[in-house]
């Protein structure tokens, strides 16, 4: 009896391992090995053809001295911490709207969600055309109200705001998650608040918001992490401005949209400084890990507070 049990466990182990084997191989080749290799690369110097040579901390010293690293980090931090509150507020508002019952609710949900599945290259191209200073739709619409619109993508003061506007078009996924969270708030909470004579604002800030806070913090973390990976949009915009693919190393007007991942990409594949690129990537990894840890801690606190209320 005991022996059959043992063999069954062994069999389960073999079966489980074999079924998961594709992922285990993939994880080894495409996650854990590259992660460790990248750490080693960050202490060495090489390009696409040569083999890595150990150079110690030289790459990291190089980063500290490179003004563009700091510029790109600043741009990325700006995007992360300005886009996150904007997108979350918009997503909550939209979720709040489509959570009400009204005619055309389904259509509104579809319209709000659809932009987030459009290929980024296509949507960026549409937006570049919309941002055209003279013939673009945005400045045309502003003109209807007598406002002279700026040269969005050519004026370093406005480029990031153009990116933020573009990004807020893609809040559909966050909206859906907020909607699911809103629907999870028990109706009885609202009913008892209404009996107590609370008004709509009180209900929203005292009941709705605390009950979806944990989801919001989680979405905020994802939004920040995504902002640190912001690449395609700026690369397409820069290619549209400079014309030729794969040869540009521009950071947009006055380097105002030189994002951190973009600068890593330039270092790795244009300047062929793959060691420096790896060091930059590890710096990014550490920043993301710290931010995530902080935000997770904040989530625990907010959910505790919400729970105790």
């Amino acid at each position, binding site marked *: 009896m005991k022996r059959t049990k043992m063999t069954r466990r062994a069999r389960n182990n073999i079966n489980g391992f074999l*079924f998961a084997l594709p*992922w285990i191989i993939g*994880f080894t080749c*495409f996650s854990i090995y590259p*992660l460790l290799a990248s750490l080693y690369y960050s202490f060495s110097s090489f390009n696409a053809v040569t083999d890595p040579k150990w150079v110690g901390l030289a790459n990291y010293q190089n980063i500290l001295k490179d003004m563009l690293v700091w510029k790109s980090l600043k741009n990325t931090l700006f995007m992360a911490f300005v886009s996150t509150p904007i997108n979350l507020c918009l997503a909550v508002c939209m979720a709040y709207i489509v959570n009400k019952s009204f005619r055309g609710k389904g259509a509104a949900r579809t319209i709000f969600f659809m932009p987030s599945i459009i290929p980024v*290259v296509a949507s960026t191209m549409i937006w570049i*055309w*919309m941002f055209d200073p003279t013939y673009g739709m945005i400045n045309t619409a502003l003109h209807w109200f007598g406002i002279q619109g700026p040269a969005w993508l050519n004026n370093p003061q406005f480029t990031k705001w153009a990116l933020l506007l573009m990004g807020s078009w893609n809040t559909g996924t966050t909206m859906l998650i907020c909607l699911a969270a809103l629907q999870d708030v028990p109706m009885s909470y609202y009913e008892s608040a209404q009996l107590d004579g609370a008004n709509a604002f009180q209900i929203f800030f005292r009941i709705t918001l605390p009950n979806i806070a944990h989801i919001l913090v989680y979405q905020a973390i994802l939004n920040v992490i995504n902002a640190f990976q912001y690449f395609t949009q700026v690369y397409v915009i820069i290619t549209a401005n400079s014309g030729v693919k794969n040869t540009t190393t521009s950071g947009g007007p006055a380097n105002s949209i030189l994002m951190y991942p973009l600068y890593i990409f330039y270092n790795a594949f244009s300047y062929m400084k793959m060691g420096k690129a790896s060091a930059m990537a590890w710096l*990014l990894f550490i920043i993301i890990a710290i931010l995530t840890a902080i935000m997770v801690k904040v989530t625990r606190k907010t959910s505790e507070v919400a729970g105790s209320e």
Partner: protein
Amino acid sequence: MNNTTKSIQYYRIVRIIRKVLFYALVILLCTIFLSPFIVMVTTSLKTSADAFTIPVKVLPRKWVFTNYPAAFEQIPYMRYMRNTAVITICCVAGQLLITPLVGYSLAKIKWGGVRIISALLMATMMIPYTVTMVPIYRIWSKLGLTGTYAPLIIPSFFGNSFYIIMMRQFIMGIPDSLMEAATIDGCWELKKFTLIVLPLTKPALTTIGIYAFLGAWSDYLAPLIYINKPDRYTLSIGLQSFFNLYTIDWTALMAAATIFVLPVIILFIFFQRNFVEGVATTGLKA
């Protein structure tokens, strides 16, 4: 009496005003969210002269369809489309083949690796692509496979954390009792999987297939890094050929973009529920 009818009337008016304002807000938001689509389609139906005339009109002054054939002529559109389709089909096939296997292993087989793999699945999603980008490039370069589609397709045959988590959640919902009968009959694990579990995973497979399609169809960074011959470009890279011209032909480019986006929108209309489920069940972004 008179007073109460007055106040009832007052509340009725307030309610109507609130309703009108609410609808106005919804319509305004919807218009804003639709405007890029509208601009894309209407620009593709304008003549170049029309698109570059002030004042800019939303609708074409003269409706033309010549931009669509022009888009196919200006860049080798059909070739790019075929390249993209080949890559996409292979990626979807890979994900559909692998995901149920791994999901089954984590959901229904009681073995020692379940907990650690489940934790690692979450962890891998936190690794920024910028960190793994250079070493993975070196792997493909050592294998002499840069410039081919291998770096774009082969990773799909090793599963994707996001899809595996989705599939694991789904298979967990399949009652054990369905499989116990098979266990008593002495079925092999693989037989149990293919005969009992796999047919039931169809809804999850549909959702994963759609997400995999979307991911491969829109992928930008991988083709940008690995594909350097123009005749091997995918659509997302190839569309940028429009930028090489001295002035960008926006009407043709918008026509090209419309055709690029169309399969995605059609897919979305038919499988809207799967899209929503994919977001809601995992609460994660793809």
